[in-house]
Structures are given as C-alpha cells and as structure tokens.
C-alpha cells in the first residue's frame, strides 16, 4: 500500500503544493496550452526524514521561482510526481547537522539547488558532474533513495545530504543568493566549459529573462563585452543602464542583426521557444560557439554550411555540479554578481507564476519564506 506523506517520515514540514488537478484537466480536455492552465498551489503539510549522519537540516528563508517549476507543475517533461512542492533555488540557515557532517554547523547560511542526490560512483559523479549522473535525484517531485518523493523549497524547512548543500558566502544576501542556485550555475557552467570566460571576448546573450540577465552579469564580471539579443525592445534601457550590457539588438530587426554579424566569440541562448539558429550562427566569428540552455520542443533546422564555414559549434549545457556551484557562488560574492529580484509573499505565488508564464518579471521572483510562510489555521 502506498505510504502517505504524513506517515513516511517523522519530521513535520509545511509548504505550498500543487495537486495533480492539471493532469486530470489535461486528460479530460486534451489541452496543454498556458491559457487553460491555472496555477493553483495551496497549503500542504508533509514530512521529511530524520537528520541522518551526513545530513544537514535547515530552515528555509528564501526560494526563487524558476521557469522549470512551471514546466514541472504542468508535467511537461512527463516525470512529475504529485503533489509537488516546487522550488530548487533555496537559501536558508542550518538548524541541525548529522554526526558525520564536516562542512557545516548550526547557524551557517546555506543553499540547495536542483539536486539532492546522485549515485556517487559513476564517472560523472567522480568528475564533480553530479548534474549528468544518470541516477541524479531532483530536489523536488523525484524519487529519493529511500523510495519517498522529494519536496522543494516552497516550504519552511528541508534536510539534504551535505554533499548537495552549498555555503552562501557572506557577501551575498540570502534573497539574492537563491536564484544563483539554478539560474546562476546554469549560465556560469557553460561560460567556463565552452571557454567563454576570457576577458575581452565579445559575447551575445539571447533572451533577457531569469537566465539571460544572469548571463549578462556573469559575462561582464568575467571581462566580456556583451550584446543582448532580444525580441523585446522595451528591455533595452535596463539591459544597458542596469545590467551593464554594451549593446542591445532586437532580433527581428535585420539591420541591427546585420551590424553584429561575425563579431561574437560566443552566444548564450536562454530561449526555450522554437527559434531559428541560422541568424544566430551568422553573428558568430569563425570558431565561435552557440550554447543552448533552453530546449525547444521540436528539432531546429541546421544547414551544415552554417557550421562548416567558420568551424562553428552548437552545444548545450544543463545546470552544473556541486563543486562548480560553490565556485560560482564564491565568484558572485567576490565580483558583486547578484540577480535582479522581486521579493514576494507566499500568498502571491500563484499570481507570480501566472506572470512568469507571460514573462512579466524583472527578472526573478523570490519567495520570502521566512516572513510570510505560516500555516493558517
């Protein structure tokens, strides 16, 4: 008999969850479009495990809202386990540590990102690339090693294996730190892996949302010249004045795109909607690299000529390993790289997610868990 959340584990927690009303809705009406989906998170009590010898328990203070949370709520990747307590940009303060925990103590400021477990023995794990481990366990809506379902950061507390907990450096306030745990590492990792971290390079960033604005800030901190490529002309002022982008190009405007042709060493493409690659490849210098972070649903057209002439590359990347996540946080603290956030009370979460669906946020919502997540009677 399936165990109930209430009886699996001893430690009581409180959060906001989505039930699988959406899936029911979909199977009845066969429709998947955002118009018909109503975000409907509500109060939810659940339980998590005792603090094991390698575990770190912490109270959550802030949690970022990532677009992946929406993908998971809508079961777009087919692997959602309901009820879902989303949230994988989690920042808080340690309340208890297991007997074998070495890196943390009570009172430390810590974070948890997209993963809470991996096999620990494969080549990816050995290479500090837990994000590519075939048995990687997601922070929420995934099956943990003990067979129970994981719950994420839209909640008041969490326990996680020490290996998957990172230290938040002193230079970053916790609310700003939260989005770094997914958006931050997702852009930082490919900038390093694809060699786009050298000062003086000219980088393009496609899409100015949660990921895009982080890419601009990290790229500037690494010493790059940055051109934002966007469909929204109204984001230009902020991109240049607040984020430090050097220029801004509207992708629909041919003459603007033409002016950037053959000038970029690399492009970080954060857009997950289907869009043409050929104009972007044209913006690259020879030996340039186009890095995809969003995964459009349908395959894209790629004329071989666009890659051959110029020996160009299209690659992908997904989040990053724990070691690199810590490195990214330390870099962000040292160079003052912080996301632009809109802090919201938990009661606003459904509205916030609906705004996120329309891209109406500058540039990441962060839930103020500490001050606003309280169980109503």
């Amino acid at each position, binding site marked *: 008999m399936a165990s109930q959340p209430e009886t699996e584990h001893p430690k009581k927690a409180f959060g906001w969850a989505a039930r699988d009303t959406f899936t029911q809705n979909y199977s009845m009406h066969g429709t998947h479009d955002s118009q018909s989906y109503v975000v409907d998170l509500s109060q939810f009590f659940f339980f998590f495990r005792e603090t094991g010898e390698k575990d770190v328990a912490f109270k959550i203070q802030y949690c970022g809202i990532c677009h992946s949370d929406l993908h998971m709520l809508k079961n777009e990747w087919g692997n959602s386990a309901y009820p879902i307590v989303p949230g994988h940009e989690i920042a808080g303060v340690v309340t208890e540590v297991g007997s074998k925990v070495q890196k943390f103590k009570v009172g430390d400021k810590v974070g948890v990102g997209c993963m809470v477990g991996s096999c620990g023995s494969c080549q990816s794990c050995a290479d500090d*690339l837990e994000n590519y481990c075939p048995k990687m366990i997601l922070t929420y809506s995934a099956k943990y090693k003990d067979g129970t379902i994981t719950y994420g950061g839209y909640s008041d507390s969490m326990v996680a294996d020490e290996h998957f907990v990172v230290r938040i450096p002193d230079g970053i306030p916790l609310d700003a730190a939260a989005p770094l745990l997914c958006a931050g590492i997702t852009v930082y990792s490919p900038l390093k892996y694809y060699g786009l971290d050298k000062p003086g390079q000219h980088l393009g960033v496609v899409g100015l949302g949660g990921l895009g604005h982080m890419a601009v800030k990290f790229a500037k901190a690494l010493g790059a010249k940055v051109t934002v490529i966007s469909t929204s002309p109204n984001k230009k002022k902020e991109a240049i004045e607040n984020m430090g982008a050097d220029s801004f190009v509207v992708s629909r405007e041919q003459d603007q795109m033409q002016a950037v042709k053959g000038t970029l060493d690399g492009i970080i493409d954060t857009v997950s909607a289907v869009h043409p690659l050929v104009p972007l490849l044209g913006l690259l210098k*020879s*030996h340039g690299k186009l890095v995809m972070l969003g995964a459009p649903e349908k395959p894209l057209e790629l004329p*071989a000529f666009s890659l051959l*002439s110029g020996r160009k590359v299209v690659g*992908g990347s997904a989040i990053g390993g724990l070691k690199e996540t810590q490195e990214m946080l330390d870099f962000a603290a040292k160079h003052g790289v912080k996301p632009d956030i809109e802090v919201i009370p938990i009661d606003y979460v459904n509205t916030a997610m609906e705004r996120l669906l329309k891209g109406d946020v500058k540039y990441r919502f962060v839930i103020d868990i500490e001050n606003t997540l309280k169980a109503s009677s």
Partner: protein
Amino acid sequence: MAKSPQTQLPLKAFGWAASDTSGILAPFHFSRRENGQNDVTLQILYCGVCHSDLHTLKNDWGFTTYPVVPGHEIVGVVTKIGNNVKNFKVGDKVGVGVIVESCKECECCQQDLESYCPKPVFTYNSPYYDGTRTQGGYSNFVVVHQRYVLRFPENLPLDAGAPLLCAGITVYSPMKYYGMTEAGKHLGVAGLGGLGHVAIKFAKAFGLKVTVISSSPNKEDEAIKRLGADSFLVSSDPAKMKASAAMGTMDYIIDTISAVHSLIPLLGLLKLNGKLVTVGLPNKPLELPIFPLVAGRKLVGGSNFGGIKETQEMLDFCGKHNISADIELIKMDHINTAMERLSKSDVKYRFVIDVANSFSSL
C-alpha cells in the same frame, strides 16, 4: 567584346567541363594564366573525384557558374616555377587541394587557417583576381600560387594519394581540432565513402576504437576485415539503432554523410560531453534536436577542409603511416558513369581520374 574561355588567358588548356545542371561532363577547351613570379605550374597526373564535384556540377548549392571544370584532389609534376619560388623545383611531385588563393591578411590566414578565410578562391568555380573563374583538376595542367601547393611524400602512391588533398584533410583537420586523437577512445564514423574510409584509417593510426555507421549493410564485411573498423552499425533502421548497445558509447562522431539526414539517432550514440562533427554539405538543412545537447552537454561542430600548413602535416603523416585512399582508377571518358555511380554511393571508396593517360600531353 567578351572573350571566350579559350582566349581569356594566354595559355591553352584542355579539360572536361559541365555546361548545365544536368552535370554531364564533356571535352572543353579553355585557357590559363602565365606562370607568375610566385607560381608553380604542374602537369596533372591524377585527380580525385570528390562528392563536392558532383554537388557543384548539379548546382546543388546554388552558386555554380557554367561551364565548370571540377576537381580539387590534384596530383601532378612541376613543369615550371616562378622566380620567387624556392620550395619547389621542376620534376617535384606535388598536390593541390581545395583552395588556390586566400586574402593572406585576415586572422585566419595569418593563423594558417586559410580554409576559414572570408575571401577564399576555390580551385574551381570561384572568381579569380583577374576577373576569370578558376577551373579545376579534370584538366591537363594548372598554375597555382606556391603557397597553396603541397609537397607530395616520396613513398605515397600518386594515384591513391590524390584523394588525401580533400578527403584526407577534411577528416584529419577536425580529428585534431576536436581532440579525436586520444588512443583508446571510441569514434563513430557516419557514412562510409571517400571521407569515411580515410577517417577509419586515420582513427586506427591514432589508436581509436572505430564503429562505422552506414546505410549500406553490404559494406560491413570490408569495413571490418579490410579497413580495420571494430564494429558496424546499420543506420537505415533508426529504431534498431536506438535499441542497440552502441547508444551512449561514443566519445565522438565524424559525420561524413553527404545526403540530408537527421542528427537525432547520431546524437544518441554519443556519451556525455560527446562531440559530433559534421563535414558533409548536404543541400538541405540537417535536423538538430536541442534536448540531447542540453541534457548530455553534447556539441555539434563543423569543419571545412583545412589550412595549407595542416594539409602538409596530414600528407607527411600519411607518408609516415603509409596511409592512402582505396580507389577505383578511371579514364576521363568514364567520368559521367562514375558520377552516376557516386550519386548512388557505388564506389569503394574514391574514383581517381588517370588524367595523364586520358589526354594527350601538355
């Protein structure tokens, strides 16, 4: 008044050209420039038949100007050198590949990467600086700037060595650039034609494990027994490929397929961080799924033949390891039949035209 091909330039030349998109080649009288200070004239002995020749003859890429004499896998003997030429002498065996000029000033040219120069002059079907168009190696002789002439290793057969000038460098260059040279790693070679079979030979010389991915099951025996591939995967059944034990086992794949195809099954064969390098130029776009790139940090890259310095390095490597192509030697009058067969992948694995014995002498 416009000059005819025979009188545009001072030296009479003879070759075979196509005059329309049927791509049918026929005898053609034209002319070439005098041998200048920096030039080398070579009598052409052999010329390989590259699939690019066929793409050009049929105007697959949309920029052919007829009449066109194709051929960019040229091996010949030096008959004349200009005053500034120090590295070659009359009688030397030399080769000419895909380009005969470049700007020499851009970053790419300065880094010996002439194949990425934005202003290349290709061996055929390209505008030259004197207003004429270049004509290729299906002809009796050619005049080339010394910088773009290659020394041919003594011990390599001239006929079987000709395809190295395009096919050879086209696979050698990306194998070096994308790091496909670590002994023990697993390389997939997609497409078993002119490029593919040379890739296997290089791969074995680098100590790689090789799996051939091909739509022609009848090539399996040879691939394994004669070419030295370790295994063979038939690609015509995508479902079978997806279910095979080869999924997720390859460190890299070199994709030499000249026809339009989807990259979906090939990307599935790559390990995490795997690299797929495409060197073929189908006339329609490839289908690229993004999800496997993101989920497995994989990449798809391109590569376009190679610079002159690297082409020389590749030839010397072949000389050292005794690597040359597997060819079917033909006379020029057989060329149209050969092109038909090439379009059906019916050649093991490169046609080479015995030019010297097809024409009367220079």
